[in-house]
């Protein structure tokens, strides 16, 4: 059996999305900027997709800008707003557990003379509106808080956070890459000024994203070139990708409550079984305020990469926040931000579901997990020592970073 439960990493392009895109490779290929009929047909497709994205977010089509990916959208929102509002102030507020697309952009801005405040999150991964209010200063120009966390799925009270920013006259950006299609979004009702999204997280192809920029927001473009995207994002449009993104977001947001009910039931089944059948396990993220497809657990005494390798052999695709899967010596910054000790963060597992996963797959995954975790614990000196009541300590001469 093959089971794909890594939809937080990327999703399959579904057939209706592929069908929508298909004509835009060999048949309709004009440059949307061209004057001729070939170009005009492509232009119409781009604008139809723009309307689909706007509709899904409660925005105006003129407020949607297509980009190459979620990372580009995040970079543009942060740097674009920071540069364009330099005269007002140089202070930005975000959280310590954002995606690297935001965190590394903030680090770059700090090098360029901006100041960044990183708000803490609580043990469930929630940001408090009171703490945000207290952090806003007269020179704050932008608040950027992710809508739903990519690793632990925690969904922020975005409307409350954005209301705080609005009251203080500060722009509010949200990285909604993991939220679109899983929670209802209405940028107007929620007072969101900028929102980043990425197509491949909801069954569009890789290589296309979008940034919503509320009309009137002062932002600088990052690239120089042609007049595409109302001169704000030069570069010939990824025509087929944009068409796919439009169709995919339409499908993903058509009936979010039904999606939440269906996928949420499988998620809850997996969590319940894991917590019942595998001892010394911790659920990471908020118990209820989490995306419907996110399961994140830490199994004590074992390491995540070993777990992923065993799952892979059983045909199961998942991910982990262990250091060994990130190519560094530190485990996931998200898991550390919610207060997990290093050794427990190393044993984390994320299963991220889509509409296409089934209860049968869920049971197959948990059945295998029970066996694999037991097997790895049997090999683990940590588990031995725990059972004997001995504290395991060791130094690590080969480990030069700690």
């Amino acid at each position, binding site marked *: 059996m093959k089971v794909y439960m890594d939809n937080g990493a990327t999703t399959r392009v579904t057939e209706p999305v592929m069908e929508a895109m298909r004509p835009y490779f060999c048949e309709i290929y004009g440059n949307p900027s061209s004057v001729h009929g070939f170009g005009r047909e492509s232009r119409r497709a781009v604008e139809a997709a723009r309307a689909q994205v706007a509709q899904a977010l409660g925005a105006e089509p003129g407020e949607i800008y297509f980009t190459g990916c979620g990372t580009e959208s995040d970079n543009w929102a942060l740097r674009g707003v920071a540069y364009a509002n330099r005269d007002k102030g140089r202070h930005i507020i975000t959280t310590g557990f954002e995606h690297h697309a935001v965190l590394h952009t903030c680090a770059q801005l700090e090098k360029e003379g901006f100041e960044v405040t990183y708000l803490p999150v609580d043990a469930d991964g929630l940001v408090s509106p009171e703490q945000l209010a207290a952090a806003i200063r007269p020179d704050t120009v932008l608040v950027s808080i992710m809508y739903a966390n990519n690793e632990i799925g925690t969904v922020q009270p975005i409307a409350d956070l954005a209301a705080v920013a609005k009251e203080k006259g500060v722009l509010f950006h949200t990285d909604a890459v993991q939220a679109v299609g899983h929670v209802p979004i209405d940028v107007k009702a929620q007072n969101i000024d900028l929102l980043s999204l990425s197509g491949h997280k909801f069954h569009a192809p890789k290589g296309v994203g979008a940034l919503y920029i509320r009309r009137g927001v002062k932002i600088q473009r990052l690239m120089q070139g042609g007049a595409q995207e109302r001169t704000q994002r030069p570069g010939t449009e990824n025509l087929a990708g944009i068409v796919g993104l439009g169709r995919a977001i339409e499908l993903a947001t058509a009936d979010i409550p039904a999606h939440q009910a269906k996928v949420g039931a499988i998620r809850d089944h997996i969590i319940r079984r894991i917590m019942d059948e595998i001892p010394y396990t911790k659920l990471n993220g908020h118990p209820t305020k989490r995306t419907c497809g996110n399961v994140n657990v830490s199994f004590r005494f074992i390491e995540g990469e070993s777990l992923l390798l065993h799952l892979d052999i059983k045909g199961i695709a998942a991910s982990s926040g262990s250091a060994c899967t990130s190519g560094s010596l530190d485990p996931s910054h998200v898991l550390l931000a919610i207060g997990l000790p290093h050794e427990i963060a190393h044993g984390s597992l994320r299963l991220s579901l889509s509409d296409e996963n089934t209860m049968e797959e869920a049971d197959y995954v948990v059945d295998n997990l029970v066996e694999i975790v037991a097997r790895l614990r049997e090999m*683990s000196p940590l588990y031995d020592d725990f059972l004997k009541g001995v504290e395991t300590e060791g130094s690590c001469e080969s480990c030069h970073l700690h």
Partner: protein
Amino acid sequence: MEYTEQVMDHFMNPRNMGEMEDPSGVGTVGNAKCGDIMRIYIKVENDVITDVKFKTFGCGAAIATSSKATELVKGLTLEEAEKITNKMVMESLGGLPPVKIHCSVLAEEALHAAIQDYRQRLANGEPPRTEEGDEDVRYV
């Protein structure tokens, strides 16, 4: 990142995995904080490693290199075993991805720590270890 077939074989079918009753020496290295801990038990008779066992908390490379290291030293004299390096372990597994090289260092360290433990106990005239004596284990 791709592991060789030999690495995956040792990962899936680890050799000499488990605990040892009355080991002559035990070496534990690594740190749970870093995500890997290796413990190697050796049984020594007439300066020859007659049996070896390991337990590892760690990634695929950590488990595979522990397994391979135990396989390499079984039957060797202590002097020969002390010459086993992480490079030899790694090469006999057909190599490791660059980010995983530090895991193979642990296997070498755990083995040498176990031998050191044995020599130390011998020098102190201590009896062989027993399972119950575990709280006595020296962590290197």
